[in-house]
């Protein structure tokens, strides 16, 4: 395996101090060293020096990482193991190819937006036609290997139709002065239409013109799986769509997509087109607070106790921690309550991690669920639809009555 200079320096800087143990959700859930950042660095060193070669066990170890970046945020030596793990997965794909399922998904579906819609419609039909209920009742799924029943319930219930096709391409607000391009992400597009509508309402209602340019998957699932080629192609297409109309800002409602868009210039050489646009890319909360300096009246309706979950990919962007809270406090005032520190980490969703490592992802979310059981909030707000999905599943499992919503949804409901 070969790394670039920056990555090699990172490995060289890791002093094996073990500080990452205190921050890695997987280590905290399991207490075993192959799952923590430090263990992965040691294994990488063996790979680079040729003392180890890719095999099933090693592939499994490197697939078991949330890419949450908590280790890197807290590493005294600034080692970003999340980046290194991704790099390792890329090497793994080069050495052994992608697993068939992922290959099909990425190369057939994600690349081709049209076909994704077709596939989406199929799954949608399956859910709505009642076959799903039949299958569940008959426990047919139990006959399938690997606890597929629970996995199946992790799959999103698809909304009817695509958000991007249901709303106009250009949405003018009252006396629009700013022009924003909206990256909807796959989750808003196929699952959480309500998030998308809230974004449009809030923006147009505050004098912003919102365009929804030609776009597709941000590329994160492919990137996380080590398939840089697919990710690169998706990135190039999005870059084209979003730079063409020269918007004032590019607004994103999904923390995972945001994290990926912000990385485009470092991941793919597009001749600097996107590097210039990069400063305009921001999370919806940041846009509302920093650019619009929005002032929301305290809610007239009482939504009850509101708490907030920090998506990993949002909290390390500028204002990613403060802005959503500022907004929630505007509308909820003293009804906004923070989760305790040890319940504030990654929820364990991490893309398809929860499908591939179901039991482990349940362990990861446990501290949060325990804290929620004590707090008994009515609303859990967050800034990432992937977290929303995973949290919904986890609280249903724990029989908690709370509702999971996107920050903007709550703002939209309450104002």
């Amino acid at each position, binding site marked *: 395996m070969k790394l670039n200079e920056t990555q090699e*320096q990172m490995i*060289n*800087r890791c*002093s*094996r*101090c*073990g*500080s990452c*143990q*205190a921050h890695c959700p997987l280590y905290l859930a399991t*207490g*075993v*060293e*192959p799952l923590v950042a*430090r*263990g992965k660095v*040691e*294994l990488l060193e*063996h790979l680079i020096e040729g003392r*180890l070669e890719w*095999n099933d*066990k*090693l592939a499994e*170890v490197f697939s078991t990482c949330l890419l949450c970046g908590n280790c890197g945020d807290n590493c*005294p*030596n*600034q080692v970003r193991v999340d980046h290194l793990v991704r790099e390792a997965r890329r090497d793994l794909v080069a050495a052994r190819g992608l697993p068939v399922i992922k290959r099909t998904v990425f190369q057939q579906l994600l690349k081709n937006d049209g076909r994704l819609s077709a596939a989406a419609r199929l799954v949608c039909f399956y859910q709505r036609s009642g076959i799903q209920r039949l299958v569940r009742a008959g426990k047919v799924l139990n006959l399938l290997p690997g606890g597929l029943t629970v996995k199946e319930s992790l799959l999103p219930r698809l909304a009817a139709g695509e958000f991007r096709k249901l709303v106009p391409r250009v949405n003018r607000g009252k006396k629009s002065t700013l022009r924003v391009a909206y990256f909807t992400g796959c989750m808003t597009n196929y699952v959480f239409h309500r998030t998308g509508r809230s974004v449009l309402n809030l923006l147009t209602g505050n004098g912003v013109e919102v365009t929804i340019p030609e776009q597709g998957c941000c590329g994160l699932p492919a990137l996380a799986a080590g398939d840089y080629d697919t990710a690169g192609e998706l990135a190039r297409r999005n870059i084209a769509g979003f730079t063409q109309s020269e918007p004032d800002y590019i607004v994103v409602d999904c923390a995972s997509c945001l994290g990926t868009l912000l990385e485009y210039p470092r991941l793919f050489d597009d001749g600097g087109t996107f590097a210039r646009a990069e400063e305009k890319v921001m999370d919806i909360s940041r846009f509302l607070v920093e650019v619009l300096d929005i002032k929301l009246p305290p809610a007239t309706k009482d939504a009850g106790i509101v708490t907030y979950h920090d998506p990993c990919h949002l909290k390390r962007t500028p204002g990613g921690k403060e802005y959503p809270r500022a907004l929630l406090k505007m509308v909820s005032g003293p009804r906004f309550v923070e989760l305790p520190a040890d319940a504030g980490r990654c929820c364990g969703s991490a893309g398809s991690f929860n499908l591939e490592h179901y039991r482990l992802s349940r362990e990861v979310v446990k501290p949060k669920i325990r804290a929620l059981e004590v707090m008994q909030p009515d609303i859990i707000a967050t800034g990432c639809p992937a977290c929303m999905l995973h949290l919904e599943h986890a609280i249903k499992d724990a029989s908690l009555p709370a509702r999971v919503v996107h920050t903007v949804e709550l703002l939209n409901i309450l104002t």
Partner: protein
Amino acid sequence: MDKDTVKKIKSVVGSEYVLESPEERICYSYDGTARRGIPALVVLPGNAREVAEIVRLANEKGFPIFPRGAGTGLSGGSVPAEQGLAMVLSRMNRILEISRDDLLAVVEPGVVTGRLHRAVEKEGLFYPPDPSSLQTCTIGGNVAENAGGPRAFKYGVTRDYVLGLEVVTPTGEIINTGGRTVKNVTGYDLTGLLTGSEGTLGIITRITLRLVPKPRAVQTALAVYNRVEDAASTVTAMIRRGIIPATLELMDRITIRCVENYLRLGLPMDAGAILLIEVDGLPAQVAEEMKLVEDACRQNSCRALQTATDAAERERLWKARRAVSTAIVQIKPTKISEDATVPRSKIPEMVERLKSIGEKYGLHLPVFGHAGDGNLHPNILVDKRDPVEMEKAEKAVQEIFRAALDLGGTLSGEHGVGLLKKPYLEWEAGAGGIEYMKAIKKAVDPRNVLNPGKIFQV
């Protein structure tokens, strides 16, 4: 390790707690040093009985056991040798009791130190030992290394808080030492002997720790000096006034520059030293002590002084100190952390000697550490890929040890001997001292099963 043995071990602890693949074993081949040794098997036992059974099996079959907590050690203490079994105690992590009336806690060895801090502080109690690694290291590892921390000057080190132990002996018996009382002189002080024994004399499976009431108030001061000597005389002046600060952290010029270059906090680049001072106790007493601290700083030519009482302000003053580790690796990626310790009065001389050792070998050698107890942390910054530099570092380390001993100090204030300081042990302990230690080891561990090759070669 033969199949039969592995099978037996699995039947003792359960197969999910036995790691066999090379990939998993590699992840237990290190600690916080550059030493490596891949164990033949990794086992995570769940209780003392399981530990004892495996130790008896080791005696029977003749394989060594390498106890391990979180693997944050800085002397190679938990690094296994091939053919050995790494015994990881992290699963035994229950806090069994916190008693406000007896002022004590009973814990299993795998409890992370920081977690114990939080748990006892919730009860208004205080467990003072605070190694910088406290968010990850385990109490078992702290006891085995007799770990210290910034608060040691006022509150002492781990040894001062261990009342009693449950230990699996090297032959597989479960014994109890000490008890639940502060006073206990029934027989040899085995608790004292086992504390700091680096996993060579027994595996600690339960610990009874003394607690104290939590200080009600804390105040912090940050003082900047032109010369290290002035910082050192401030320390002496404070002690003469009868004040024992809870924290007394010193940063030398190189360290200050590294931090300033990294964080731009506005620290003066030409300063010779910075002292971070904290006093704690009852509010009225703390206020009075802080006045005396300020006087001591001013009378000893400090050129700038900041103080803070509330948590946020205090954290601001701590910022520079907390950034040191990250700041210094910006110069070179590899840091060799030493913990040579000298009597308090020799600090200025030791800082001077460290400076000339750094200059002699052309190495970056920032010094920051605990000025109250003379535990300076000289850090040699190198690139481990550069063999010439590594050789120079090796020589510099030897000179640092010599200097510390010349000044009446010790090779290691808190990290222990392990593998790294083994070649130098005789300089301090003498041949007779080592023989005495070996005699103890041979008597309790006739088959040399527990952590062989550490501290000395039997």
